[in-house]
């Protein structure tokens, strides 16, 4: 761990009870976020990306969730060892979160001003006048037109994109050092999504903070990320910077995902598709969880959980089979 690291998650395991067994939603995930960088966790539904992110803020309901192991270090503090009160003080102030569905994440009976104001006043002692100015300034910083009037609006009076801007303003309220954004643009239209992504980028540049961005959309990842972690079935299968992941993908899953993206440039050609279904966390296959869908699977993949293989320069992939073939 270098001095540069803001957040590091080591070997995190989060289990859920599922019927007769346990679902290992997150099963030994390690990643880190450095200062001033944008890191993307990318994966399909049920791969454990949201659970991992929620564990950082300890927002997974325990029980049923159970943190079965691992360590989460934020700026030198071990988050899993903090008591609830210090954790509460940390949330919002140092680490803020933006959720997917902006309509349900805002309380419908309070005005935008009330909600942003609350986000500020929880962590800071501030007078009414100053609070108002602060709210206006926050809304301005997320590019909301007419912030003065908007403060008196209720969430339902805003469009989806505007609501997401309010959510971001609330996350920014106490100038956190890390923002965790869980699919913040999935519910939005493409044009609005592009605007929100741009907003994230400009805020990050201006404020020097880190962003942990969770998404399933590879297009968004390419657009916003400095470094990428690809998750599959509760584990990181590949990590690297954007160019490494998108130009030189080394894990069959990442390769398959990229090859299966439809685009007009592939017209007339058959799309590559990864066969099979995403495994249920409660019935994960033995060995490499991807082996039933993998075109390169060998007998060893059925038996052993694969190790991370180092391609150098921070590019790692969890596929020894392809690693051995890399120079052929």
């Amino acid at each position, binding site marked *: 761990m270098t001095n540069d690291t803001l957040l590091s998650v080591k070997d995190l395991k989060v289990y859920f009870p599922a019927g007769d067994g346990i679902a290992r939603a997150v099963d030994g995930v390690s990643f880190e976020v450095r200062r001033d960088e944008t890191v993307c966790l990318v994966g399909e539904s049920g791969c454990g990306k949201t659970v991992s992110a929620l564990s950082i803020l300890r927002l997974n309901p325990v029980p049923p969730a159970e943190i079965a192991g691992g360590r989460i270090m934020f700026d030198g503090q071990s988050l899993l060892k903090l008591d609830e009160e210090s954790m509460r003080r940390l949330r919002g102030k140092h680490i803020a979160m933006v959720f997917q569905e902006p309509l349900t994440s805002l309380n419908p009976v309070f005005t935008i001003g009330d909600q942003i104001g609350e986000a500020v006043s929880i962590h800071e002692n501030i007078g009414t006048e100053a609070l108002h100015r602060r709210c206006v300034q926050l809304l301005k910083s997320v590019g909301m037109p007419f912030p003065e009037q908007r403060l008196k609006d209720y969430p339902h009076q805003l469009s989806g994109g505007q609501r997401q801007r309010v959510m971001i303003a609330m996350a920014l309220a106490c100038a956190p050092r890390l923002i965790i954004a869980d699919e913040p643009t999935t519910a939005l239209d493409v044009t609005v999504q592009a605007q929100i992504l741009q907003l994230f980028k400009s805020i990050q540049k201006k404020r020097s903070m880190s962003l942990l961005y969770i998404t399933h959309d590879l297009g968004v990842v390419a657009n916003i990320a400095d470094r990428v972690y690809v998750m599959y079935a509760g584990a990181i299968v590949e990590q690297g910077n954007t160019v490494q992941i998108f130009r030189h993908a080394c894990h069959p899953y990442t390769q398959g995902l*990229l090859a299966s993206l439809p685009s007009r440039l592939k017209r007339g050609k058959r799309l590559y598709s990864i066969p099979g279904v995403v495994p249920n966390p409660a019935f994960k296959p033995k060995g490499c969880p991807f082996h039933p869908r993998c075109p390169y699977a060998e007998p060893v993949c059925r038996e052993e959980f694969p190790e991370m293989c180092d391609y150098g320069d921070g590019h790692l992939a969890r596929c020894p089979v392809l690693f051995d073939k890399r120079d052929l």
Partner: protein
Amino acid sequence: MTNIQAKEFNQNFQFDQPLAPKRTRWEEFWLLFRQNRLAILGLFIFILFFLSALIGLFLTSGTNPVFDPALIRLQEKLRPPLAEPHLDSLQPEEVPRLDIYLMGTDDLGRDVFARMLQGAWVSLTVGFVAVGISVLIGIFMGGIAGYFGQHMLINTISVDTLIMRIVDIMLCFPSFFLILTVVALLPASIYNIMIVIGLTSWMGTTRFVRAEFLSLREQDFVAAAKALGVSNFRIIFRHIMPNAIAPVLVSATIGIASAILTEAGLSFLGFGVPPPHATWGNILSNGKNFIFDAPWLTFIPGIAILIVVLSFNLFGEGLRDVLNPKLRERG
């Protein structure tokens, strides 16, 4: 670009690896239901009640019943539960079965156990028939209001509005007094009571069948059925109804409890099933005159009603939890 050699798979690759091991609906239902102890207790008491009512019907009816609920032995009146009969003062045919008054005797020396058995059948049939009537009306009215609600009648009022206003009007009557009035006008008979209770308790069912239909009607699978060209009749009964029936079942279970209570109340006030036929309500009503001399005459039917009503409610709530589709998805 990516270096995948689109190594294609066998075209016949089967995509269905079902996620959960196969279980029938009943197995799944039972798995979930089993976890609710109170509901299991409710179900157990319900089965016990059902069996005793059914057996009671056979044991207490006919010309020479095993337990005769109408046999009067004035010399043996107000004997406490588990009392032994005074054999010297009784005719041989008057001696109670089992040689014991299990639940004592009433003011006319009738065996309370026999009368409770006979009353159990009355409660059971009143509960089921009354609720059966109310559920049938409720589903019919609710279904029409929910599915055909927008159709206008004579261009002035929609079907939905009409039915829901009727429901509102019916709900305005204090139904117990409505029942009292009707029963007072009609000849006293157990069937009239069932019908009257049924006819005055369908509004709740109508309301939520309509609500279910309104939301189900907008579901994609209903649109798909319409697009296939499935007839309205079939859409209502084959596609929507099975999805709407779960909450009806739950409320019906709880409705049985309240019908049993209503019948007991009517009998208690003397408007119920005519004597000498015993019901839990009229045993209770007779007993109130002797509450200090013979408390069992009040307590035995009272507690029986309490337990049966409670067990139906517990069972109904258990059903509601299990039939809740959100719980089901998780299971």
